[in-house]
């Protein structure tokens, strides 16, 4: 069975394992409640909708209350769809971190930190110009095209604009530790987003490929 869960990024620290210092991201993963099963007949695709986290019951509106009532839950911070086979799940069922164990490989998806309106040096890694020696070209993008032919700027030209706040997946992160009592998942390396970001942790695509072989 495939494994997936949603959780909250708590922050980073380090742990010692076999005399080695390992950088880890601590994720408060689950417990998630299955709120709805999406089926091919009614929705056109298959997925498992789960909810995670707490919220003030007062701030839940009536339609949402009705939706959550089906799974026996009251107020959930977020709802998200996990790409799982709905056949193995029931509405109201709980998914906990226990599905993962030490040594698993995971893909972690989240929304990256927003950088605002960023220039071309920060956003695309352009070299920029020299900062002194009479230089009049510093961090500007420079020429963005040719002349009469083609007399337009090509689509996809790297230019300044909004950076960050993208959906980013980091692949193949090693699970360093699982704490089922506190619902904590320790994953080696960095994970997209700021502290408090909701992230989805899945069994890694690469490890699934390996298992098939």
């Amino acid at each position, binding site marked *: 069975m495939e494994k997936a869960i949603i959780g909250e990024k*708590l922050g980073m*620290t*380090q*742990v010692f394992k076999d005399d080695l*210092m390992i950088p880890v991201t601590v994720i*408060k993963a689950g417990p998630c409640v299955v709120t709805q099963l999406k089926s091919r007949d009614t929705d056109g695709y298959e997925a498992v909708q789960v909810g995670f986290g707490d919220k003030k019951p007062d701030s839940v509106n009536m339609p949402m209350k009705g939706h959550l009532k089906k799974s026996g839950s009251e107020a959930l911070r977020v709802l998200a769809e996990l790409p799982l086979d709905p056949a193995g799940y029931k509405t109201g069922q709980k998914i906990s971190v226990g599905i993962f164990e030490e040594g698993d490989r995971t893909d972690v998806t989240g929304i990256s930190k927003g950088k605002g309106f960023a220039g071309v040096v920060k956003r695309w890694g352009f070299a920029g110009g020299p900062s002194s020696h009479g230089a009049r070209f510093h961090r500007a993008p420079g020429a963005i095209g040719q002349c009469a032919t083609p007399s337009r700027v090509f689509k996809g030209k790297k230019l300044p604009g909004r950076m960050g706040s993208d959906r980013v997946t980091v692949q193949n992160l090693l699970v360093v530790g699982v704490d089922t009592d506190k619902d*904590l998942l*320790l994953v080696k390396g960095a994970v997209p987003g700021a502290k408090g970001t909701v992230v989805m942790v899945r069994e890694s695509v690469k490890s699934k490929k390996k298992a098939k072989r």
Partner: protein
Amino acid sequence: MKEIETLERSQMKEDVIPFQPGDTVKVTIEIKEASGTGEKRTVRTRSQAFQGLVIRRQGAGARETFTVRKISFGVGVERTFPLHSPVIKDIQMVQEGDVRRAKLYYIRDKVGKAARVKKKKFTS
């Protein structure tokens, strides 16, 4: 946040002696030496001591590190250890020093007699 704090606390050693920059300490580390591959692979551990002047303590909680400086065959050698690393078997106080700053980087530019640190007269 609290979860990370408790996690870090569980990583910390409890028997670390108090020492400060300016003190001379002897750090005993355990080194694993592996030889051979497959079934012939053997892992041997031996301990090695590194004695010198503590010139810096940095970080907090389980992430704290300290740097020890010594002169080895006329060459200055600095080694930074994670304070709570399981590799460190023992830290012994050799000499308490009396210094006026937290980071003793100035020692790097001093040679001979000037590169010393005053002994602490009254130990608490």
